[in-house]
């Protein structure tokens, strides 16, 4: 409640209480610079987090959630083993559909190798079964392989899309890492602004004593410092964020080899995301300085 009122007064400004705090000083510069540097780093971490998140999503979608089972067996065995394999697949959890391909489909698959005119019926072509995984369950491929070996010894699982799975995990991990560093950066900034505010307050001990002596209330004194520091942090973070956004935008993005981190950055409305950084910095600075100021003023009774 009180904090809200203060935050409002902050925006409106109070030229009176403003002037009583010395205008410059290295702690002030330190606050601005720290906010700027941390905002810059935060911008990078955010971009990395967003990009790797986007990548993880895209790759996850591209995981075709399917595999192929190839059954090679002497002519008479082929149909029997196919039926056995289908029976096994039917009782395997995590499988939505298992469907043997017909001759035309198999021919289409082999066309690039042998042309359209392949007499597929006359050749010992293996039977293919297209398996679609359930999207919500996790298929135990190794278990399936063992069971198939028992029931249909000619069956081979072609796990062609699986190689991408660790990449998705990696991208998700990268997103987690960047989010973690985002939190670390924010925390570090909060601590630094708090310490800088403390340092400024103790460097300005005589200013506080003078103000006390002429009848200034704690709130008046705190407000002057808080406003100064919040604006510094806000300004610094804004500059740092803009610099960070420019740096991210300037990252060479080689569309030719379109791939992984080559599209590091924000997209569309995503560019609004970093705008939260200075706002967050301002809020953190406001809370940190106010806490520091009121605490210092109480101990300086």
């Amino acid at each position, binding site marked *: 409640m009180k904090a809200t009122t203060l935050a409002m007064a902050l925006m409106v400004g109070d030229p*009176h209480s403003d002037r*009583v705090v*010395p205008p410059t000083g290295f702690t002030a510069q330190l606050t601005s610079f720290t906010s700027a540097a941390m905002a810059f780093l935060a911008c990078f971490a955010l971009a990395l987090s967003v990009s790797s998140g986007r990548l993880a999503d895209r790759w996850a979608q591209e995981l075709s959630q399917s595999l192929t089972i190839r059954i090679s067996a002497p002519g008479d065995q082929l149909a029997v083993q196919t039926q056995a394999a289908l029976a096994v697949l039917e009782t395997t959890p995590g499988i939505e559909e298992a469907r043997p391909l017909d001759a035309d489909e198999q021919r289409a698959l082999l066309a690039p190798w042998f042309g359209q005119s392949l007499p597929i019926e006359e050749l010992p072509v293996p039977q293919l079964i297209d398996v679609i995984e359930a999207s919500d369950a996790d298929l135990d491929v190794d278990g399936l392989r063992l069971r198939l070996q028992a029931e249909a010894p000619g069956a081979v699982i072609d796990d062609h899309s699986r190689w991408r799975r660790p990449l998705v995990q990696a991208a998700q991990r990268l997103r987690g890492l960047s989010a973690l560093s985002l939190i670390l950066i924010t925390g570090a900034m909060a601590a630094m602004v708090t310490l800088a505010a403390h340092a400024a307050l103790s460097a300005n001990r005589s200013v506080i004593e*003078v103000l006390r002596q*002429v*009848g200034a209330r704690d709130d008046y004194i705190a407000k002057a410092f808080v406003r100064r520091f919040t604006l510094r942090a806000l300004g610094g973070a804004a500059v740092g964020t803009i610099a960070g956004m420019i740096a991210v935008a300037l990252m060479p993005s080689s569309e030719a080899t379109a791939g992984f981190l080559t599209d590091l950055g924000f997209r569309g409305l995503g560019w609004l995301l970093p705008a939260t950084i200075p706002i967050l910095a301002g809020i953190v600075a406001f809370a940190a300085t106010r806490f520091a100021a009121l605490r210092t003023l109480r101990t300086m009774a």
Partner: protein
Amino acid sequence: MIELDKVAYSYGGGELLSDISLTVQPGSFHFLTGPSGAGKTTFLKLMYGDLLATAGQVRLSGVDTRTMSRDQIALARRKIGVVPQNSQFLDHLSVADNVALPLQVAGRDATEAQADLEQLLSWVGLSSHRDAFPPELSGGERQRVALARAVMMSPDVILADEPTGNIDWEMSQRILKLLVELNKMGKTVMIATHDLTMIRASKAQVQARVLRIANRRLQLAGADL
């Protein structure tokens, strides 16, 4: 009115001041003397709530300072002009702004009081230094700025701690005259000083009580000066 009722004060070691009772009537004029380290500054700080009595009561307008909130003490101070022994200023503001600071802190418009400000600065002989910054002042000039700042709000009470410690005889006389004049306008004045010649000089101008702190007690001096 400031009342001290069996006040004692200790900084942690033994008691520095013991069993001190005094009623400072509005419009009275007091000198406070005593050897260096006797507790004069401490005594004045008790009177404006900068220190709180460790025993007994200090009452400002009837209210015990120990029961006052921090805001209440801040408000009470606006009626008490203090000239500290070692005066400090806002070094980034000009002399004029420093003198006007009490008005600004109280949220009052300093431009209204512009005439008062100029008159006050001329009285303490600092008109030519109105735009200087405090670090550029000499020791005596600082004391005079502090006095002007204390008087600026037209407080009911003026507490001055060695206001002429660094000031030559002629200027001291001017300052004494200013304080006497303010006293004649009804303001209460208390001056802590070790300058006995100043106390003697005041006798012709004002009916002053001379208090002396010695051996932790407050005594009435006067006849022996």
